[in-house]
């Protein structure tokens, strides 16, 4: 449970509907660290409010409409990126289709002064954070390893090594709190990463140094082909927090309302100086690992179909329409916006861009070593010769 508010405040806000439920929590000192027994869910698959235990303040209607728009834009971006990868205009693209509730809740839970530490699968979150779509794709197209300015967007390069970025998030969050800033860091990873040593070291360091970090584990069922049962025997990945003294929560990652409620609360909690928290979001990777992967070799299409039916965007749409918060005009306007952005992305992907090969020597050190200057001169001469021949 993540709880930045007192029980009395929650009762006042109507967020606790059943106070006996909290009172009946296990009577242990560590109960407050434990996640829910089953994923927190505010909206069911039909888009109906579950009337669930509702421990966390429900996001405002306005915020949910904004979230819906962002999810629509995010999915269209992701689909366009996948299409470009299949056309060979992007070298590789790891899709997060089906994980939009996680991606958008992650971005929306942060202030512009906070930092996000994404993985290669979090392009939608990076885009929602404000990095231009074309800029996000440039690294997947192979222009350079990371093509946006991390400091300008307060978004670290998308990490390819697993779990290593969680330590960076922890160090940065500690550094910021040490300076008296109220900046927090959101560290993203997947289910496979929880098996890596750095995951555990990051949780431990964050807890020991009380670093304001939210760890969001998007459990999408697979680490490339390996199912979650082969990663862990724990009933929930959120439980991994308790051994390190982190508050934790388990949430339905395909429930946009639950996701945003939990992520908002997690941000408030860590920003208030309560130490780090870990959130496991149960979701599903609808696409293969990347365009280079063949998911039919390791999973049943019927399973995928079951998760298509749990689609987070359709779920929020039903809720918003059912409550008079989204009409056809708004729906069309969001979809038009998404199509326009997709067209712009296709256009940008068609642009001929060149990176000067001599830049390869420019950023290895602040100043190139004598050896790098020599090698640069060699390549420069080779390029000049090629240009002459051509």
């Amino acid at each position, binding site marked *: 449970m993540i709880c930045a508010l007192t029980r009395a405040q929650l009762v006042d806000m109507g967020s606790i509907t059943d106070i006996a439920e909290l009172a009946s929590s296990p009577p242990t000192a560590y109960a407050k660290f434990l996640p829910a027994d089953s994923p927190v869910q505010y909206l069911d698959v039909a888009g109906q409010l579950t009337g669930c235990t509702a421990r966390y303040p429900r996001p405002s209607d306005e915020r949910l409409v904004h979230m819906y728009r962002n999810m629509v834009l995010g999915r269209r971006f992701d689909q366009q990126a996948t299409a470009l990868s299949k056309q060979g205009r992007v070298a590789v693209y790891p899709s997060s289709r089906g994980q939009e509730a996680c991606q958008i809740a992650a971005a929306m839970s942060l202030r512009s002064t906070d930092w996000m530490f994404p993985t290669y699968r979090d392009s939608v979150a990076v885009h929602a954070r404000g990095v231009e779509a074309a800029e996000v794709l440039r690294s997947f197209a192979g222009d*350079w*390893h*990371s*093509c946006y*300015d*991390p*400091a*300008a967007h307060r978004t*670290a*390069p998308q990490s390819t*090594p697993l779990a*290593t970025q*969680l*330590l*960076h*998030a*922890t*160090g*940065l*969050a*500690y*550094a*910021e709190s*040490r*300076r008296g800033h109220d900046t927090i*860091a959101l560290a993203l990873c997947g289910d496979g990463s929880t098996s890596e*040593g*750095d995951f555990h*070291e*990051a949780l*431990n*360091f964050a807890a*020991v*140094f009380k670093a304001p970090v939210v760890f969001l584990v998007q459990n999408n069922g697979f680490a490339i082909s390996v199912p979650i049962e082969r990663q862990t025997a724990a009933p929930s990945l959120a439980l991994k927090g308790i051994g390190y003294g982190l508050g934790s929560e388990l949430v339905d990652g395909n429930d946009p309302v639950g996701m945003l409620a939990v992520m908002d609360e997690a941000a408030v909690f860590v920003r208030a100086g309560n130490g780090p928290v870990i959130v496991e979001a149960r979701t599903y990777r609808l696409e293969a690992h990347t365009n280079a992967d063949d998911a039919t070799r390791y999973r049943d299409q019927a399973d995928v179909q079951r998760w298509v039916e749990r689609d987070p965007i359709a779920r929020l749409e039903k809720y918003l329409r059912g409550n008079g918060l989204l009409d056809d005009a708004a729906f069309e306007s969001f979809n038009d916006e998404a199509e326009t952005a997709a067209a712009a992305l296709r256009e940008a992907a068609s642009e001929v861009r060149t990176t000067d090969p001599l*830049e390869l020597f*420019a*950023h*290895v*050190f*602040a100043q190139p*070593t*004598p*050896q790098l200057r020599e090698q640069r001169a060699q390549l420069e001469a080779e390029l000049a010769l090629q240009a002459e021949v051509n």
Partner: protein
Amino acid sequence: MPITTMAQGLNAALRDAMSADDNVLVFGEDVGALGGVFRVTDGLARDFGEDRCFDTPLAESGIVGFAVGMAMVGYRPVVEMQFDAFAYPAFEQITSHVAKLRNRTRGALSIPIVIRIPFGGGIGGVEHHCDSSEAYYAHTPGLKVVSPATVADAYALLRASIEDPDPVIFLEPKQLYFSRADVELQSAEPLGKAVIRREGRDATLVSYGPCVALALAAAEAAAQEGRDLEVIDLRSIVPFDDETVNASVRKTGRCVVIHQAQGFAGVGAEIAARVSERCFHHLHAPVLRVTGFDIPYPPPRLERAYLPDVDRVLDSVERLQWNDVVDATWSVSA
């Protein structure tokens, strides 16, 4: 002037860097109240506060990854790995992130971290406490690799490393921690300059860190036999000072490289190749290496059999084609 040990010289460098810049923080295992197992951080927590010099959980990858995050927002972490072989858990953080973040982000991020590592043998240490791991780091683009051979350099090179905008692997020869010198500690030029410790005409001995003293001792012994050897202390393996090494070898025409680390694919191999490529027409003999054997570092009682010593250096010097005859060493091998 007070007599200073290398450990004290390093401690003074940390103190002065911390006084000069609030962004310099020192952390690692046992660096706080204990002052580090070699006492290099002695008194820092007391004098600068426990938020400037602090102990961390016992996890080397965690220490380095944590430092990366701090460096991303302007701190200059100086972290301690307790022993050379205990730095290996941090290898991924060092090679995939510390070394590459500047390049990955086209210069948008600087990672000015100093990773201090007590390294090398010669102290009768048990397994995992005596590795010479410089080649792993020197092979990784984006890391500077430095090792002091004198007390004065311990101070000057550590100050320069902390001020450097790039990450530095700072290798402290364990054998020299308690070596003493009567010197004024002062900052010097930026990293990347070798120094000639002894001038000579007949052959060049190239070394760094713990083997510089050996090279000097060998040169003294050779002088008794009428050979006048020049001794170069590289000080920094990366950046490598080709200029100083080449000028010396072009003058002497002969070169021996000395280090404790295993020879195969070691730093000495790189130096021998560079000298051969660049000084070929000045060389009277192949560049030879005096290194550790290609075996895991031996147990304490067998350490002497492994470590380069004066005799091995002199034997190599004798093989430098003074009489233009076939080197018998190679005629018996494949």
